[in-house]
């Protein structure tokens, strides 16, 4: 067992998830089963292998540059409405489960 119920409670807290007692029990079982399988990655020696975060830095980039300058094609002028106008206020609020005419509404954050 790599993961205990205590770990599950801690990780759920990090992920902003409230789990029921039953969900926690299942989660301990399922995560241990999956991580047990994932452990086979340790059969490989990767000391000298570079990590790969994405594939898009291999194609269409300016090879002579480094860092974000490689992606010059993906950048745009830093101007107002560079690609499109922002959503109108009322449209941005349209899907909000709780809002007034100006703001998204959430439970009180600061008690005074």
């Amino acid at each position, binding site marked *: 067992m790599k*993961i205990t119920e205590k*770990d*599950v409670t801690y*990780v*759920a807290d*990090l*992920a*902003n*998830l*409230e*789990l029921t007692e039953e*969900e926690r029990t*299942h*989660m301990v079982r*399922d*995560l241990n*089963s*999956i*991580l047990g*399988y*994932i*452990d*086979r*990655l*340790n059969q*490989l020696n*990767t000391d000298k*292998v*570079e*990590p*790969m*975060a*994405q*594939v*898009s830095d*291999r*194609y*269409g980039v300016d090879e002579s540059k480094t860092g974000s300058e490689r*992606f010059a*094609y*993906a*950048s*745009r002028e830093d101007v107002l409405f560079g*690609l*499109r106008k922002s*959503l109108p206020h009322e*449209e*941005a609020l*349209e*899907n*909000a*489960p*709780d809002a007034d005419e100006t703001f*998204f509404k*959430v*439970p*009180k*954050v600061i008690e005074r």
Partner: protein
Amino acid sequence: MDLNHLTIDPARTAIQERSTSSVALVESFYTRIQKEDSQIGAYLTLCKERAVEQAEHIDRMAAEGRSLPPLGGIPVAIKDVMCTRGVRTTAGSKILETFIPPFTCTAVRRMEEAGAVILGKLNCDEFAMGSSTENSAFHPVRNPRDTSRVPGGSSGGSAAAVAADMAVVTLGSDTGGSIRQPASFCGVVGLMPTYGRVSRYGLIAFASSLDHIGPLAKSVKDAAIVLRTIAGRDPMDSTSADVPVPDYLAELDKPVRGLKIGVAKEYFGDGLDGEVRKAVEDAIQTLAELDCEVIPISLPHSEYAIPTYYIVATAEASSNLARFDGVRYGYHAKNARTLSEMYRRSRAEGFGAEVKRRIMLGTYALSAGYYDAYYLKAQKVRTLITRDFDEAFKKVDAIVTPTSPTPAFKLGEKVNDPLAMYLADIYTVTADLAGIPGISIPCGETREKLPIGLQILGKHFDEATILRLAHAYEKAGEWS
């Protein structure tokens, strides 16, 4: 018009020549959906009023004698992970049950600009997480070829709609096999383009370094037509590549003689169903008879693909799904006393079991003390898997494998065993990790008449070669 086996060009020609109209075609598809879909469950939302308006526009063009665009008047449908302005988009999740996007996904917009008529939005596993479409928060999809079986997933609705003639073509998304595996299970063509070939702007993100949009269709040619429509750089998606898009249709009929086809032993090991093996070996024989040169290759890190994938994909998902907080859109738990309680309860009540499992796994893999052991390790193995393909493609033009180790399984068969479900993607996740394109095409049936899929993988940005091979194979099948 007979909807069975109806493909893009004959339908478009009929509308252009006015032997039928796009409105009539759209109506007959809705009639069919009404009749069939209660057994299949492919659609989540229909948008008939909008569709008829689009169809009328195309019919007016035809009446005025104007030449129709490539998808002029063609009834299509969209996996419900792609945003459609004004049309509900759920990602198969309760948390987005009432979400009406204020903008449209670039791939969908390009389909519409090419004249396509959108019939509705298609069912899928919640947030595209699953291999059977049983993780939809609304209802599962059933395989039109055998309704006791799953259609595959996560684009199960997209595959089933094409297989049951409830749309001419559909769009799906593929993060670990979610276009190709359901295409294989339902007996249709499914194409995952190269990473970066198609913009993901407006695709509800699952794992951003792995997500792809692509077509499901009844023929390789239709898949090529749709790819040509949706491919190419989009300033709204910085990961869409600035690489020229060839004319896939012009490439389709070029000869395949002399193409080098790699066959990797790692894709024919234990766990491969005997009937699937036989059908794929026969398909390789057919390609050899078309004068392709079959070359044995090795992709030695293949067995590490599933564990690598389930770390990388869940880590990215845990981050992407953090946006669902019950504030700006989506499900919102009522009567919470604090902000934190509102977040937690909204997510607890809004997400389904598999989504929670993946958020948990991804959060764990990224958490302090485990990052190096899991996430960094998986990123390094991803390099090794990608290098395997780089090496192989020095020797061959394409690689041929089974799409899935088994034909479609029964509903309920794997729902209680997440690991068994994950292994259904064993032959498809490798291409997502390496960012190379792959296509699944039908290559036979089991004794129980279940479809079997052949997967052809290609070099980065070389969809043209895999489409050409798939097309040649499809034609060869027609002779027999």
